[in-house]
């Protein structure tokens, strides 16, 4: 017993320990607050929150779960990028390699795919919860709009990821999806009024999406860059705004009557 406290004491008095944690934690009001605002990850939170934020029946934790799913997807996504070439010669065999060559490659890919489906599901339920509690009302109108855009970006993240394995499922799903671009009024070659702007299959919205007039190598590269760099970048920035505004608009919404 004595020995144990002695070891604990020695670790805590250690120069390295102290350099990391800077101060002792004594479970006082001050230290509990310090634990939150002295920590870069926790300081997203206020020092104190409403009881409702802790009781699951109000928020269901859905916003947090969405963010957690996003983190899982970033981590598994980065690891997957080590094994993947965005070219039509190699993409498919890279996925096959994940299955047969890469240690835990199957689990890695499964986690990424099911995590993506999961994120789409929970982000929709999060929106439903915010609607049902009227939490989009003043002063949170703007943050609801940011949330809608994040919802759309979640769909687009998943959609662009669909093509990356370069299998029949992704290829035709992207073909069906991007064909809609060709129907854009004015800007798609099959859309209404596009003839007035001299729009052809080689200069319309669909061409811009695919980097060509059909789903081929350029489309795969574009999907890959949107999926791994561009959309995550925009999403992360908007998430910062979203979380920031949750705090600035008064935290988890509470009954206002």
């Amino acid at each position, binding site marked *: 017993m004595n020995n144990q406290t002695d070891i604990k004491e020695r670790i805590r008095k250690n120069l390295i320990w102290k350099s990391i944690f800077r101060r002792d934690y004594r479970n006082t009001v001050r230290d509990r607050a310090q634990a939150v605002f002295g920590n870069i990850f926790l300081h997203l939170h206020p020092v104190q929150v409403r009881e409702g934020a*802790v009781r699951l029946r109000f928020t269901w934790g859905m916003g947090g779960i969405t963010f957690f799913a996003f983190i899982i997807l970033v981590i598994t996504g980065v690891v997957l990028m080590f094994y993947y070439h965005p070219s039509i010669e190699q993409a498919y065999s890279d996925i096959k390699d994940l299955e047969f060559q890469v240690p835990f490659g199957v689990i890695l890919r499964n986690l990424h795919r099911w995590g993506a489906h999961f994120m789409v599901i929970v982000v929709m339920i999060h929106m439903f919860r915010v609607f049902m509690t009227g939490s989009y009302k003043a002063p949170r109108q703007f943050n609801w709009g940011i949330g809608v855009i994040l919802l759309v970006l979640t769909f687009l993240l998943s959609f662009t990821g669909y093509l990356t394995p370069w299998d029949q499922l992704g290829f035709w799903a992207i073909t069906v999806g991007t064909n809609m671009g060709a129907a854009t009024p004015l800007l798609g070659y099959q859309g209404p*009024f596009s003839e007035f702007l001299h729009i052809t299959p080689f200069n319309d919205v669909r061409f811009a999406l695919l980097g060509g007039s059909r789903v081929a190598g350029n489309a795969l590269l574009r999907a890959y860059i949107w999926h791994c760099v561009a959309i995550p970048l925009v999403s992360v920035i908007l998430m910062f705004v979203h979380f920031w505004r949750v705090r600035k608009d008064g935290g988890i919404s509470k009954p206002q*009557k």
Partner: protein
Amino acid sequence: MNPFIEIITQPDNIAIVIMIIMVTFFTLWAFQQAFDNDKLIAAGKPVDGENEGLVDTFKPLVRIELIIALVVMVFLTFWSIVVDAPLEEIANPTLTPNPAKAPWYFLGLQELLVYFDPWLAGVVLPTLIIVGLIAIPYIDINPRGNGYYSFEERKFAIVTFSFGFFILWLLLIVIGVFFRGPGWLWYWPWQEWDHSRVVFEPTRDLSNVIGIDSRSLPGFIIGAIVVNGYLVAGMVAPYRYLKKKMPDFLKQFGMIRYLVTTFLFITMMSIPVKMVLWLVFHIKYIWITPWFNV
């Protein structure tokens, strides 16, 4: 295997099954709490959470976040061990699968292609969904029901949103995933897909019903009157009703907000209208113009 079991247990469709279970559970929970709060309000009592105090973030909130993160991680790991992500044959531009389906969360939009041309189903309506969602806080000026579950205080908002979310978004997704087979024809889950099945459905346009060629000038004029008449009537009729029954509300609501709200609302309602026209009356187009068809 039983086709129903087969379709439900396809790896990607397991996500849809999970979605149905989760959405059902949380919907019931939300409405349960809404009705509970309605009773409290009717009794003049404070709603759930109205008088609650503060707790420290560290550790009550941090603890619950950690627990949820672990539960989610365990759930996803379990899912990933039990079910393998599908990988079909390598992409082959010369071999079109039938049906070629979009990712599941876009199948509601793909389902709309049965009733609308692509420029509406794939571009205009999705854009209006996004714009409409963002507009919700600015057109819903009802100050009540802010920050708690409720139903009685905001019936119109909740019924409208629920119709869009459950019927037009989720139900159409479920139909697209489980009930659409080759040729985008309707298949019950227990029916085998028949790739040679052809359904001849006599199509006609609205003006054909009264014997006028929809591609002629009179047909064009009738179509224009019906489509624009629907829009105008849909925006004028509620105005007259509100003017009579709720003049104060209308004044407070304002003209711009009124126009935006009714436009979004009747656009949304045009989806079930077109569905009925097609499914019941086999009417394909209402208005045919040289540039687009509605």
